[in-house]
């Protein structure tokens, strides 16, 4: 099995706020991420596809196909958007790194038919990221 990773970057704004919490609770749990006017990040997304190289092409997945999928599913949805208001898949969820990564996994997995989605890693900043795997196929198990 060979792993192939494609990286893209997008920029988006968000705010952490749970309407079921009191203002004080929101402030305590989310800190400055609760700022009513929101804030933003330059996100870096790494998408890893696993598979055997096709004997005819030498490719696990055609990169141009993968780029189109990432453009369609991630860039068009999230780049230069407000994650709280403009991404229906995140409606009702706090747009944390964990939740955004999970939404991206759910968007990409059915679209990747050549090879299989192995990992989604989303960096919210260079020092904070979330990884998604299919359960039982985590990095430690692979």
């Amino acid at each position, binding site marked *: 099995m060979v792993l192939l990773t494609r990286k893209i970057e997008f920029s988006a704004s968000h705010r952490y706020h749970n309407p079921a919490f009191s203002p004080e609770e929101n402030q305590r749990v989310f800190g400055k991420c609760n700022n009513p006017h929101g804030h933003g990040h330059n996100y870096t997304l790494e998408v890893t596809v696993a598979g055997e190289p096709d004997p005819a092409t030498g490719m696990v997945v055609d990169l141009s196909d993968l780029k189109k999928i990432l453009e369609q599913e991630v860039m068009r949805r999230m780049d230069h958007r407000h994650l709280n208001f403009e991404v229906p898949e995140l409606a009702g969820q*706090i747009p944390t790194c*964990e939740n955004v990564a999970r939404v991206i996994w759910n968007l990409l997995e059915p679209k990747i038919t050549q090879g299989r989605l192995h990992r989604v890693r989303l960096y919210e900043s260079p*020092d904070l990221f979330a990884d998604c*795997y*299919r359960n039982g196929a985590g990095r430690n198990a692979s």
Partner: protein
Amino acid sequence: MSSTDVAGNIKVELGRRYRFAAAHRLHSLQLSDEENARIYGKCNNPCGHGHNYVVEISVSGEIDPATGMIANLADLDGFAQREVLDPFDHRSLNEEVEAFRTEVPTTENLCIEIFRRMRAFPKAKLERVRVEETSNNSFEYTGDAASDSEAAPQGR
């Protein structure tokens, strides 16, 4: 507020990077001075040397629907600060960290020691500790091996 995850079979991990600077010297009490010099080379320099270490901690768990979080970063940061960064930053690992009075403070052993400390984090499950000794050398420990020899160098 509810999670709209339709595929409950996804595992999500939260990764966080921290930095500290510390001195160390690679010198094994089980080896002669000549052997130490031969095996560790300039890392055996009696006066020690130091690195800017980067520590990457990965934890897993359920995403709390109310917060969207596996673990609150303030809790994880506070725990790492108390258990790892405060005791290690701007210290001599050999002289000031109990484990390294006897063990050689290679970055393999440092991964294992940090794993031992971070494993006690109560809010999520520790999956992995990855330490960059320099930008060219990194080491990982997942704690799931039969022996501690699993800490695998990715290059030296």
